[in-house]
């Protein structure tokens, strides 16, 4: 699983287990790129929930994934800050440092860049950017050093986020970026895995995704 899904995942699994108490689910968290590399070299995973479509596509094309990539949720991004109340695009122009996920490979980072460009501020703020390995990494960056971060909205719903104390967040207007299509593929013919895969597209699951800030 790509890390940004992890917060919703606990609840998804709980819900899933209500109906399928005998199925045990083990999760491995890592960046999507790493997981893809592992899967291509025989990692014993059954389902791959990516943070984008690119990697599932690749796996499908290579014939490793046995299902066509399907979008299970669309991610949204938020402004996040511990220093500035009501962080928004204007705040970005005032501050010194802005943390985002690395746009080279992290879809949430790409979305952030897209939003900056569409808003027409990219050239002005591009020197303030610092890049985190994963989108979750933006949060400690922002807490400890950067002024504002662009995070996955889903991470703001993590049960752990409350422990960090006071913070401010605000959705980035979706009109400035394409919501992040997150794809899932089935990797092995496995009854139980298939059940969970199907479960991801049920109403119940959709509800949970929505609760965690994903866009339908």
């Amino acid at each position, binding site marked *: 699983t790509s890390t940004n899904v992890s917060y919703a995942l606990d609840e998804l699994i709980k819900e899933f287990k209500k109906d399928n108490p005998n199925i045990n689910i083990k999760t491995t968290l890592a960046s999507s790129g790493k997981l893809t590399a*592992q899967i291509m070299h025989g990692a014993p995973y059954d389902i791959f929930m990516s943070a984008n479509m690119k990697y599932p596509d690749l796996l499908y094309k290579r014939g490793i994934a046995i299902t066509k990539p399907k979008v299970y949720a669309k991610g949204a991004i938020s402004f996040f800050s511990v220093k500035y109340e009501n962080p928004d695009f204007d705040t970005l122009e005032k501050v010194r440092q802005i943390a985002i996920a690395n746009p080279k490979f992290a879809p949430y980072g790409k979305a952030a860049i897209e939003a900056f460009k569409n808003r027409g501020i990219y050239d002005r703020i591009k020197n303030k950017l610092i890049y985190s390995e994963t989108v979750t990494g933006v949060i400690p960056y922002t807490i400890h050093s950067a002024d504002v971060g662009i995070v996955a909205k889903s991470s703001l719903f993590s049960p752990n986020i409350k422990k960090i104390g006071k913070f401010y967040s605000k959705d980035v207007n979706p009109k400035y970026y394409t919501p992040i299509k997150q794809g899932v593929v089935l990797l092995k013919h496995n009854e139980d895995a298939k059940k969970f895969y199907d479960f991801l597209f049920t109403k119940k699951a959709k509800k949970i995704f929505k609760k965690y800030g994903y866009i339908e």
Partner: protein
Amino acid sequence: MDELNFTPFLLSFKLAFTVTIILLVIGIPFAWYLSRTKSKIKPVIEALTALPIVLPPSVLGFYLLVILSTSSPIGKFFWEYFNMKLVFSFEGLVVASCIYSFPFMIQPLQNGFENIDKNIIEASYLSGKGPIMTLFKVILPNMKDSLLTAIIITFAHTVGEFGVVLMVGGSIPGKTEVASVAIYDFVEMMDYEKAHIYSAIMLVISFLVLFAVYFINHKNKRKFNDVY
């Protein structure tokens, strides 16, 4: 904290222990050879030996993944003849960590071998002892510091490693999810409290292990090294 899970720690120390032992067995003859050879290509071998440290761990991990996976000749060989999977398995972690930590074992050992007084080696030969006896009874006991450095750096480094381990092992609980990976996961999930606790446990155990080793070494050394 109802659910403190000690398996990752056990795995970590099991891994570090195994790797240290294996590397000692390989490293001693290899470093010995390096320290004695007059070969022209010695600097080449030495430089090659240090290379695994130069690559970022997860990149090295990536290459190891490619090399060790069952689709590669090596991985296939082990799979077909020993029924051993070298990726996403504990064995795989051992192999990968051995490669990654190799230089940390070799360097101090070679160093130790090169500092040994030639005369006592000759004295041992003239006592009728062959190279093996000489190695274990005369050479190694007289380079305890280097041996200790090699063991400690290798051990600690394997405990702390996670780039290679994550890549080659995945993080399969109970199998390849070692402590470093577990802690990393907590950080990623922003469960900082757990991350702190696990880190603290890690540090305390490691400190105790290291302290014990140094303490014993200290005592031992007094015996024949100190003056008045």
